[in-house]
């Protein structure tokens, strides 16, 4: 059976280069056909499939299946596009392998002969000094308390204040209907302008009053009469 890869591979190119390297092959269509099964095998055995990268792995898998089929059936005709796909994969692998080689070289020299600058100096503690936690001068229970309440205020501000304002302004339609019915019981008839005269009414109040008027008319609880456009609306009990 195939050797199971123990390393976790971040992407499909990394996995392919590793498989080809293990067989000591160079990158070509032939070597891709040879490792296609192992590639698919790796994907099948993967328990924690990296869901984010899944599409990268699958696109490459489909190309590998194509390569493998072509190696088994040389008579298989493939389209121009498919040929390009295979060539692309080969090319990308070669480029990726090159950068991998370079990165191995970088790893060898990274941090070995550091060039220090004056800027690096003050940030780093010297050998002779001990790292201590210095309590800031203005640290007190009062300041901590204030900092915490300031912080809480920032978070609570929007949550509490905003809805309060909305509640203040809202007059429900039900309240208006009740109000209107009550008034009509006291008086036999009313004018629409009278309803809104009493207190300082907002535009929203007037709209709600009008809606209440419409609703009561619909329920046949009141009778309304308007003689001209924009004229006074007279309301009487039915």
């Amino acid at each position: 059976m195939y050797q199971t890869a123990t390393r976790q591979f971040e992407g499909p190119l990394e996995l392919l280069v590793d498989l080809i390297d293990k067989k000591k092959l160079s990158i070509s269509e032939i070597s891709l056909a040879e490792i296609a099964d192992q590639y698919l095998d790796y994907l099948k055995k993967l328990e924690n499939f990296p869901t984010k990268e899944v599409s990268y792995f699958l696109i490459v898998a489909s190309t590998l299946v194509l390569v493998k089929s072509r190696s088994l059936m040389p008579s298989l005709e493939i389209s121009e596009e498919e040929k390009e796909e295979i060539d692309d994969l080969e090319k990308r692998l070669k480029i990726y392998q090159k950068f991998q080689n370079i990165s191995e070289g970088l790893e060898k020299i990274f941090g070995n002969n550091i060039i220090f600058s004056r800027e690096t100096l003050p940030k780093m503690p010297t050998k002779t000094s001990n790292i201590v936690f210095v309590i800031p001068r203005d640290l007190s229970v009062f300041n901590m308390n204030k900092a915490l309440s300031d912080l809480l205020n920032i978070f609570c501000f929007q949550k509490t204040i905003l809805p309060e304002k909305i509640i203040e302004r809202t007059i429900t339609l039900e309240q208006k209907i009740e109000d209107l019915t009550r008034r009509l019981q006291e008086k036999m008839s009313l004018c629409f302008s009278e309803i809104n005269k009493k207190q300082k009414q907002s535009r929203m109040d007037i709209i709600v009053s009008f809606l209440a008027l419409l609703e009561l008319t619909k329920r046949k609880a009141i009778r309304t009469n308007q003689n001209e456009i924009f004229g006074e609306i007279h309301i009487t009990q039915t």
Partner: protein
Amino acid sequence: MNISNHIEALLFLSGKPLSIKEICKILDKKEREINEAILDLEKELNGRGIRLLKADANIMLGTAPESDEYCKSLIKEELDRNLGRAGLETLAIIIYKNEGGGVSRNDIDRIRGVNSAFTLGNLAIRGLVDRKINPKDKRSFVYKPSVRLFQFLGITKKEDLPEFEKFSEQIKCEKLFTIQ
């Protein structure tokens, strides 16, 4: 005093990377003159305890990489050398693909065949790469090697990297961006 002496003074005082543009402005000289003076300064400092670092368009004075051992014993540095495969690959691409304009995340993703956003973020936090807005597409960024990266690699310019010319020539020949 000549221009290179003045540049040396500025770099010593600043203690951190200065861009060539900044130096041109301060000394009121053309970029060509400044670049020549920088080459002179680089030659003068060769064989001394202080070296001139040049990463992209930024220059800085640093200690000679050969003094690394002694400098390390003066500075107690927590050296986290481990960059991981992904980090090293990404750095390799940023160094070798950069022809002055930086390398976009798109290019890095395409070469590595995976999303490199996380790796790039880590490298940026460690100060090993510089991030700039992509002049060709303002919605994205390009990445360049930082002076700090060169400090950790112990090189004063990218040409100091082993087989730099050979590799970058090969990379150019591969016609990287004909893909897709």
